[in-house]
């Protein structure tokens, strides 16, 4: 089966610019997660969706980060404006509802200069 798809794989921007990442989960997976992985650290959950509703966004910096999953399938994560400390790998994962196994995409590596 096809895995979780993410694009772009790499992005370099200047601080204060905007950037968007896209994620297409595994077909049939209603739960979608966005994690931020800063170099040298483990991934940290930013937001969790179930279908097109938000389950947990407690660690999402809402002044600059936003995410949507309008049709309950693919999702976009946006940063506006970006800061230097946003440099990280942004991982998307998906799972069947109520299951423990999350499937991760390859990630988008963001560098903010």
């Amino acid at each position, binding site marked *: 089966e096809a895995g979780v798809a993410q694009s772009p794989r790499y992005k370099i921007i200047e601080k204060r610019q905007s950037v968007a990442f896209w994620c297409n989960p595994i077909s049939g997976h209603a739960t979608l997660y966005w994690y931020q992985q800063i170099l040298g650290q483990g991934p940290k959950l930013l937001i969790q969706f179930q279908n097109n509703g938000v389950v947990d966004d407690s660690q999402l910096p809402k002044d600059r980060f936003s995410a949507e999953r309008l049709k309950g399938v693919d999702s976009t994560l946006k940063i506006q404006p970006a800061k230097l400390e946003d440099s990280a790998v942004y991982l998307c994962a998906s799972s069947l509802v109520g299951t423990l196994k999350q499937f*991760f995409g390859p990630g988008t590596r963001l560098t903010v200069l």
Partner: protein
Amino acid sequence: AQSVTQLDSQVPVFEEAPVELRCNYSSSVSVYLFWYVQYPNQGLQLLLKYLSGSTLVKGINGFEAEFNKSQTSFHLRKPSVHISDTAEYFCAVSRDQGGKLIFGQGTELSVKP
């Protein structure tokens, strides 16, 4: 709140030697425990998980982990490593089925010939 501590940031080991990657967690409630592996420029892949029952859990690629409730540990072991096991390993916990994963900082396993 839950937290995860991986006690070694880097573990160098020679090929065919045994290895143990240490993980301790803290939680006031019962949790589910996981080990993920991340190869360079790839997403995370589930190695194994502990849900309940037998405290010794076997995973893919010859890895196993032992849950120790009294020591709140979930150490990962392999009796004989290969060059191809070189990767970053993450321990994680989850309080709920379908809930967010809380990751440790990661342990870089480097297998030398």
